């Protein structure tokens, strides 16, 4: 098992750099550059070609693509992710400043969606065909179908503009000191994000639970005279959890990458928002750092899912 894990981890390293190279190549092939964004076409009309060249030179944009990639890669090896082309702020500082916001929002949403999704899915499976099951199925379908931005805007209309219960957006207000001061700002985006995620978990856990409830080992447990709750929640639920864990595992990278749409709707200053701004402004170093960690998170999540699957399901063997 140890040899398998080491082998898997070693494969991740070249994979990570190949994907980063492809991202860098994609950016290079995308029309536009940071200077065009910084200056704008109208002001560009007043800039002499020599001045434009000097500006590009100063920002290191005149070097060939491969040199720029290698310089970036060399920096990453030394833990230096470069500087924002717009502000000159070290990329590391920008990401570290945004990360708490993203972890907070995604972490809460992931937790809520996992807990409620699993429970509701299990209840739905156990009460199959009941009004409750049908209601949850419909709610689940609605949750999966409604785009996040529609859900978010509807929540703003109801809870901010009509009821005046919650702030329209942002994460921290100037007078906020403790977490609880800014808690109202977290409520709406995290619930909206969780609500759109819970449906998926619920659907997975329901069908998985239904599947496990028909298995032989459940019948055996019942025949042994075990209490129904123990049959359902210890024997059935554990196996039913497997596909749910896979789903949650694939959502883990979101903890780092952020949720672009919810962050945009609620003006949440997380990584997702920063990533969109970086792409719009062709801020290569920032795009690369976020991409690097997102790719890293996806690869690690997939590795962990493999480990967890093996741990939860004795039929799975490491090879």
């Amino acid at each position, binding site marked *: 098992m140890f040899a398998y894990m080491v082998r898997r981890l070693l494969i991740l390293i070249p994979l990570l750099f190949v994907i980063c190279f492809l991202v860098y190549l994609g950016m290079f092939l995308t029309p536009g550059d940071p200077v*065009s964004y910084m200056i704008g076409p109208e*002001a560009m009309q007043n800039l002499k070609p020599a001045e434009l060249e000097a500006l590009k030179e100063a920002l290191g944009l005149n070097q060939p693509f491969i040199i720029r990639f290698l310089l970036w890669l060399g920096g990453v090896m030394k833990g230096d992710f470069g500087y*924002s082309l717009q*502000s000159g702020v070290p990329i590391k500082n920008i990401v570290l400043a945004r990360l708490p916001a993203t972890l907070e929002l995604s972490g809460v949403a992931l937790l809520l969606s996992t807990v409620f999704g699993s429970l509701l899915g299990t209840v739905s499976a156990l009460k199959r065909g009941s009004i409750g099951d049908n209601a949850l199925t419909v709610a689940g379908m609605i949750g999966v179908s409604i785009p996040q931005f529609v859900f978010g805007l509807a929540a703003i209309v109801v809870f901010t503009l009509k009821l005046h219960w919650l702030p329209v957006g942002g994460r921290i207000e100037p007078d906020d000191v403790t977490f609880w001061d800014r808690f109202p700002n977290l409520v709406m985006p995290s619930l909206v994000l969780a609500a759109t995620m819970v449906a998926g978990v619920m659907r997975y856990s329901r069908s998985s639970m239904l599947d496990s409830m028909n298995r032989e080992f459940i019948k055996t447990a019942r025949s042994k005279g075990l209490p129904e709750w123990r049959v359902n929640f210890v024997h059935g639920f554990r196996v039913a959890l497997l596909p749910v864990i896979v789903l949650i595992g694939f959502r883990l990278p979101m903890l780092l990458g952020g949720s672009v749409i919810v962050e945009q709707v609620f003006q949440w200053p997380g990584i997702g928002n920063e990533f969109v701004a970086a792409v719009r402004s062709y801020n290569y170093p920032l795009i690369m750092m976020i991409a690097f960690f997102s790719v890293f998170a996806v690869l690690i999540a997939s590795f962990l899912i493999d480990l967890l699957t093996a741990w939860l399901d004795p039929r799975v063997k490491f090879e």
Partner: protein
Amino acid sequence: MRKDRIVVLVTTMLLLATGLFAGGSKEAAPAASTAPTSTAVGPTNSNPLSDLRVRQAMAYAIDMKTACATLLQGMALPADSDIPNGPWKTPDLSKYEYNPEKAKALLKEAKWDSNRVLDLIYYYADQETVDLMTAIQQWFAAVGIKMKFRQITGDLAAQLNALPADAEKGPSGITWDLAYGAKAALALQEYYNAYARSVDGKPQIAHTPANATMDSLIAATNSTSDIAKQKEAFFALEKYMASNVKDIPLYYQQLFIYENKRLNRNGGLYGNDQYNYDWGILNWTVTADANGKQILYTNTGPKQFFFEPWSDPAIHITRKVLWDRLITCDGSLTPTTGKLASSYKLSADGMNLTFTLRDGLKWHDGSPLTVDDVKWSVETALKFPTLNAVFKKTFNSLKGAKDYLEGKTPGVAGITASGNTITFDFASLDPNCLLTFTQWAPLPKKYLAKADPLKFQQDPFWQNPVGSGPYRIDKVSMNDYLVMVPYKDYWGGVAKIDQIVCYPSDDNDANVVKNAAAQKLDYGFTKNVGDVKSLQAMSHMNVKAVDIPYTRILWVNQFPKPAAK
């Protein structure tokens, strides 16, 4: 077919129907006194767009009145010149009211090849632009001009502005036939200066061949500080440009200032909020909150850094209130009185400008603001590549500016600073030197002396800058909020609003409607027509339309295309 495509198509058909109907009416016929005479001028080179009659036909073919009323929802004004409406526009311009029959006749006279397909480019990404381009395409088709349009992305400078080899003969450095874009001007000369050859005879514009008449008309607008003479020169130039259809002005965009009704300017002026003017912010008040505090909420707060005020002087609130200017101006940007400078004097010939700074001026950190800061700021700005074009012209007109830039002298010879007085001697006249000093802000030398002008915006100073204006930074959390409070030692007194809280946004804030509806946006301005409609529907908001020098134009490439390889 997608729904939005159908909407555009139906709108276009309606526009055409109403336009064609109007075309046959009395209204469409150009007024006799203003109708341009259809000259017999043929093409001046191998490009048929160099034929005046073709350009006139295109101008006649577009029904901007209807487009402004429908596509632009009545929030734009049809343009008949690059110059905005107002005292600087001559009343007897050649007009090109929508007249498809006249357009057809002109094209026939010019022997227009109806199989030729024109290539129109634009750089905006919004649907409104696509709709307008679709409408123009249909209007052109109705008179026999085929046109395809496309959005350009990537290196816009190379695609839009690549200059021809020769200012008069070309060949063209660009591939397109028509380009849709905008010209925003701080000084009106900005509309036309690029149409003239540079002092060394080189081309400055990609699409329109230079000629001696145009050169001299443009030079006349730049050669005097006398307002009456300047106006006369502008009138002559405007008439020339319009009668020769050097470009096709489409519409004037307006600026919309929105304010929560709890904000009171207390008699303060309204003007072009994209720039600095004497808007009287010291006297502004807002309804106090439960704690008795007056807090103004606005946008354009910093996301990652504070924007420097030299490329664009006032598009963000921070650029407006953190740094003071030497002098100020009224809402139409006409210089009026001193700010950091207690007095100023421009010599009769416009070649010498002296400012006397107020006594005891201080930066927000308490250190003295001196003429040395002003001198250093001008010299540094000269090396700043994205310096605003009007400032650039002023500073480059100084005596010794060229030598300084070439490294021949340690400073600009034309700047002398002594005591509280700083004097600028010009080598060539700049009619907008006063305007420059209403917008350009000196910065503190002690913090920025080592900054690389090429990477000026990337200097750590812009994380928490020190200013000189009526408000100073109290606290900032990048991408969360900025709190500015009145600067107690401000020379003009202490501002009445206790706090200005700025939420982060670009100048084109995507969250205007949401935040205004939630009463978290008391002041701002926008050119987004959709947002304006929503803001107008809010009972707690006031929206004020302001005419600004911002013209959407169709540029016509009149140079011969290079021979195919």
